[in-house]
């Protein structure tokens, strides 16, 4: 019996002397889970482990109840998997249609009419319906990213692993892609990494924050955002008490820190504020309760 879940138990991965992941315990089910973390946090390593592109150095991974260390079960996982890697490389001279068609062949879709219909479907889903015959090397970065996403969507897989799917994609297309992924996530497990906190806030029910190979936060997006309540305030100058400050478009400074000054003008926290606060060493729960004034 195949269960619609992914589990990791005490999973670690090293590359030589470098530890990319350590002691990761996770259970993932249907829905969209976002992975956040700074560069080098282990997001791509984790996604490659889930996509069976990389074995763990320690621990156990189960995808849909199947063990990727057993060759037959690994093939079973790959039949139910869509994977968009971080680095999208394409063979020279390929058009978008030819590349997605090639991956469809490797995914054992050998019947031409059905395969071509499926390729057209995923190109349409990713907004590439009129670019199928265009050579990939002549495409923009965002369009290439969508070609890479299109091949991952082939066959509407029950497990979809996406490494920075919206990088370089224009805002209108990002909204379209969010809709596509949200629809797919009704029945599929979608795990995506991104540096765009607004994508996570808009799309994901759950967020996992990785830092130096370890899970720093795992829970609902709203709970993480809530941890920054009372810790974001506006001022006319950078506040030395803040962990991080930046000048906003209004000319005022947005300060994020563990403890706001008395009488500070508080602002509604965003996921980005909470994420920065978490990484800058803010404690998981507010030390003092302060009223949000704006």
């Amino acid at each position, binding site marked *: 019996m195949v269960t619609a879940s992914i589990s990791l138990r005490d999973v670690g991965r090293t590359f030589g002397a470098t530890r990319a992941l350590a002691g990761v315990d996770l259970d993932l089910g249907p829905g969209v889970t976002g992975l956040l973390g700074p560069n080098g946090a282990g997001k791509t390593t984790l996604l490659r482990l889930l*996509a*069976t*592109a*990389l*074995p763990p150095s320690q621990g156990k991974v189960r995808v849909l109840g199947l063990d*990727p*260390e057993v*060759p037959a079960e*690994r*093939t079973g996982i*790959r*039949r139910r*998997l869509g*994977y*968009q*890697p971080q*680095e999208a*490389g*394409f*063979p*020279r*001279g*390929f*058009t978008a*249609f*030819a*590349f997605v*068609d*090639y*991956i469809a*062949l*490797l*995914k*054992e879709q*050998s019947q*031409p009419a059905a395969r*071509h*219909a499926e390729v*057209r479907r995923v190109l*349409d889903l990713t*907004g590439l*319906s*009129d670019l*199928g*015959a265009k050579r990939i090397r002549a495409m923009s970065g965002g369009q290439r990213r969508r070609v*890479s996403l299109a*091949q*991952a969507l082939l066959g509407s897989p029950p497990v979809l692993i996406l490494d920075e799917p919206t990088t370089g994609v224009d805002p*209108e297309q990002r909204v*379209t892609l969010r809709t596509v992924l949200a629809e797919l996530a009704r029945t599929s497990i979608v795990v995506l990494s991104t540096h765009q906190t607004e994508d996570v806030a808009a799309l994901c029910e759950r967020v996992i924050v990785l830092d130096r190979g370890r899970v720093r936060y795992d829970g609902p997006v709203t709970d993480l955002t809530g941890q920054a309540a009372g810790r974001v305030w506006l001022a006319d100058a950078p506040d030395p008490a803040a962990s991080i400050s930046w000048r906003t478009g209004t000319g005022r400074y947005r300060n994020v820190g563990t403890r706001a000054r008395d009488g500070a003008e508080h602002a509604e926290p965003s996921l980005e504020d909470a994420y920065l606060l978490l990484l800058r060493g803010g404690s998981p729960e507010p030390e003092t309760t302060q009223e949000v004034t704006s």
Partner: protein
Amino acid sequence: MTGWHLDDDMLRRYAGRTDSLAEGASAEQHLLSCERCRARVSAAVTAAGGGIDLAAVWDRTRDAVEVPRPSVFERLLRGAGLPAHEARLVAVASAFRGVWLTGVAVVLAFAALAAAIGHARGEWLFLAVAPVVPCLVVAAGYDPWMDPALEPELVTPYPALRLVLLRTIAVLALALPAVLLFGLVVPGETAFAWLLPAVGFVAVVLAASTWFSPLRSAIAVSSAWLAVIWLLAARSGSPDAVLQARAQAGFLALAAASFSVFVLRRRRLRRLRPWR
């Protein structure tokens, strides 16, 4: 993609072919990217008794524009009896998009150079290069370094062993006759002497790929062969040592042993399938 769609009047005029040239062009431009309006046009035409399945017509049109035409090489593979989808998998390898031609061109150049230089030295030169070209091209056919799309490829369920063997056979089927033909211009008996070493080296590269990357394996094998040829040439005036039946039988044994190792260790194609 925009939020604009054909309104009902425009749709009726377009379906009834009573629209102006400019309006029709505008509608068609929009229909290229709007499945919803295509369905509405299809329904309107059907309701008007047109009876044309526009969706099917559209799919055929897109097929004609988008589906890549098979290359000459792919048609050759199909002609040789390979199923169409496997012929496509073989033909798209980067090895067949330049590397193979480069390899054959190198052999051709060396064959011409050998013919120009003369008997013994020309034979040595050709013998040094011809046997290693097939293994280098085979390695390029499935080495991750040569394949920029490796990540999405390697997590597909298609068996790596089958893909590697298909590409290997395709390389040999094309490279051997071509190099053989070029070898005919080389003086002496080396035109055929390189065949068994070439097959042996391909098998060694396949076996070595279960430990190391295919391209590194091929480069190591090629370097070792060049060293052997250099030593033999330094000690002897003619390449008789390579042409002897014992040496040729040795290459055959090497091929058989290496291929056995490859099949036994097929689940350990390290760079293609990092799981062990």
